């Protein structure tokens, strides 16, 4: 039986194994997605792993619930909240393998232990920094599709349209089976499996991530 779960936004549901990219404009819209998504998981009893970049972790904590609630979730290890420098860029550079290992370290033990499901979320604005390895972003997103089926989980990738430009949107869409845009979850049956994507990509020009830096508002 397919495991479905509340996204946290009324009327929108996710399915176990979903790799969703959420497009939003600015911090306000981000919080309208991020906070309900996490709170729904926490209330349900899911393991929640959150990596933020453009917002301080403590701000997310204060928005999630009362101090007592949040302290309970943290002490119970139900909630893991990290800054991007402790996750995507924890070694000072981005490395796809390291990041996949990061998810493995948190999700694997959790869902084989006391939690039955994991929901993860990552704020992707870290990829706009001039850090080594950020050009692996699209490949990493594709590789995540291999990681997702291994555990009962969903992953939500947050992309700020005020900072990411047109050059990234199309490739991001290609690597995500589901897209959250304008309050709708859009299925993407034509997303490319990792092998397909990486094979096609190897034949065409990679995304010029430096071009992204030059044009990003951030």
């Amino acid at each position, binding site marked *: 039986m397919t495991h479905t779960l509340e996204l946290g936004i009324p009327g929108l549901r996710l399915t176990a194994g979903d790799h969703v990219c959420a497009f939003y404009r600015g911090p306000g819209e981000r919080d309208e997605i991020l906070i309900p998504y996490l709170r729904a998981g926490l209330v349900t009893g899911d393991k929640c792993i959150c990596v933020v970049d453009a917002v301080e972790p403590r701000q997310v904590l204060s928005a999630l619930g009362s101090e007592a609630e949040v302290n309970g979730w943290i002490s119970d290890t139900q909630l893991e909240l990290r800054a991007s420098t402790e996750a995507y860029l924890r070694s000072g550079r981005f490395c796809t393998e390291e990041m996949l290992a990061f998810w493995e370290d948190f999700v694997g033990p959790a869902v084989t232990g006391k939690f039955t499901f994991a929901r993860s979320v990552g704020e992707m604005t870290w990829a706009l920094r001039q850090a080594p390895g950020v050009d692996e972003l699209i490949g990493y997103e594709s590789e995540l599709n291999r990681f997702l089926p291994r555990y009962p989980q969903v992953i939500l990738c947050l992309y700020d349209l005020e900072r990411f430009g*047109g050059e990234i*949107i*199309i490739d991001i869409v290609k690597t995500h089976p589901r897209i959250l845009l304008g309050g709708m979850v859009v299925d993407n049956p*034509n997303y*490319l499996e990792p092998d397909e994507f990486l094979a*096609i990509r190897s034949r065409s020009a990679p995304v010029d991530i430096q071009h992204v830096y030059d044009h990003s508002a951030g």
Partner: protein
Amino acid sequence: MSSAARSVDIAGSRLTTDVPVADGAAKVDPLLRDQLSNLRGLLVLSMVMTESTDERQILDLATRAVPSLGRCHVAGVRLVNSGWHATSPPCAGPDLRVAVGAQLHQLGGGGGMLAIQNEQWAWAFPLRGLEGPIGHLVVGAPEEPSGSEQFLLRVLAQQTGVALANAWLHTKERATAQQLAAANTALAQTIRALERSTAIHDQLTRVAVSGEGQEGIARAVHKLTGFPVAVEDRYGNLRAWAGPNRPEPYPKDPQARREQMLRRALREDRPIREAGRLLAIARPREDVLGVLVLVDPGGTAGEQELVALEHGATVLAMELARLRSLADTELRVRRELVDHLLGGGDEEGALALAQMLDYDLERPHQVLVVEGRGRRRDEDAFFHAVRRAARDVGAGVLLMARGRAIVVLSPTGAPFDRLCGAVLAELGGGTCRIGVGGVCERPSEFPRSYREAQFALKMQAIAKGVAQVVQFDALGVYRLLSEVPDTAGVERFVRSWLGALLDYDARRNSELVDTLTEYLKCGGSYDTAAQSLSVHRNTLKYRLQRIREISGHDLSCPETRFNLQLATRAWQTLMGLRS
């Protein structure tokens, strides 16, 4: 599993590739899946662009997405209404722009191949809005892109055009909505101002209609504005006050400064601010009837207070004009009555006019003739000064101007000795003389009293008197002589005693009669007479010697001196009567 050449038509783009076929079922080709995936990406990009209302943001999204769709790049974006777009990578150099622009012009609203320096392949993809072509997306590549890539670029251009048209429409609608909102706001403000203005007008009109007068107007304006309000006459005298902190005594500007302020207010034709006060002139035309004052030392009165003040000044002008009209009518009737009485009109008519004025004419009166002037000659101002002074000291309310003099019918016993001082106070200086006629018990006696008052004034001038008030009854021998019915006998008496001297003065233009008159008036004192005549004592002695020689009279004889003095008085009386 076998392999076969498959041709798949995807949204107008034909992909041809080797497709693995298993068990008779087609497996979707990776390139086809890539194309489908690109189209899905374009769909999302299109949704993002359509959500945007910013032209620059839409073009930025579109142009930066181009490299994701193939080995190509944006050479420029040219919009029909704004030319080459600054945020996209433009065609380098103005010359190249001109060349490409000319080619785009030839293409019109369609797309097509372009020849661009340093580009192996260049194509103009048309951007179309809802109402036709809006520009071109110019794409360059080192080699011609595949059909599927070109198809994706066409879709991108089409979606960009729709998003731009949508954004422009949104901007236009927003501008229209803003204009509408601004118009609504302006209209609402106008309506509020009109409502407020109507309320002000209604309240002040009620005051005017209810006959509450100047006090009512001041109260209404105070109530409408919250500021203390004063009504002043044109000279700065307080006529009404409403509100706290009424100054005691009420300050009054010097006349020159007051006139300067009035001139400025008339010139500017709107309320003016002066010395912590807002002043509006109550004026039917150029005539200043009064001044409405808003006491505002902090300068905080706003537009609404100004409106209330202006309305108040208009109502005050109406009220003062009404009062003036009443006063003018009353003055006219009074003038008619005075004219009637002085002209010896019938008593019945006089009493009827007096009754109209609710005036008791049947008590004893005396006629006063007032002559004088202020610091500057203004007969109207002199008339009103006498009118106010007579009213204030209780010297009478029936008066009219005759020549340069003002005739006042004054009830007997009135303090007309205070009238001169009051007139001069009203004028702020100048001269004033009053002749007072004898008592008239009946209306028919007014002409006589009037003649007497005139005569008294003339005798004072002829006799070079200094008193400001001259009563006929106190003229002594002059009064006696003036009442002699036959002046021919008096003239003969004068000729018999002064004839030779009068003839000499007439021939030589000398002043021997005047000299004799003053000498006798001074009781024969050389010193007093010389001083009074302003001549040297020896001159006086010389003249007196000439008088003795010409007239043949002995000035030391008491009998002669008496007759000569009587003759000089009679001569003055005759001059007074003749003039």
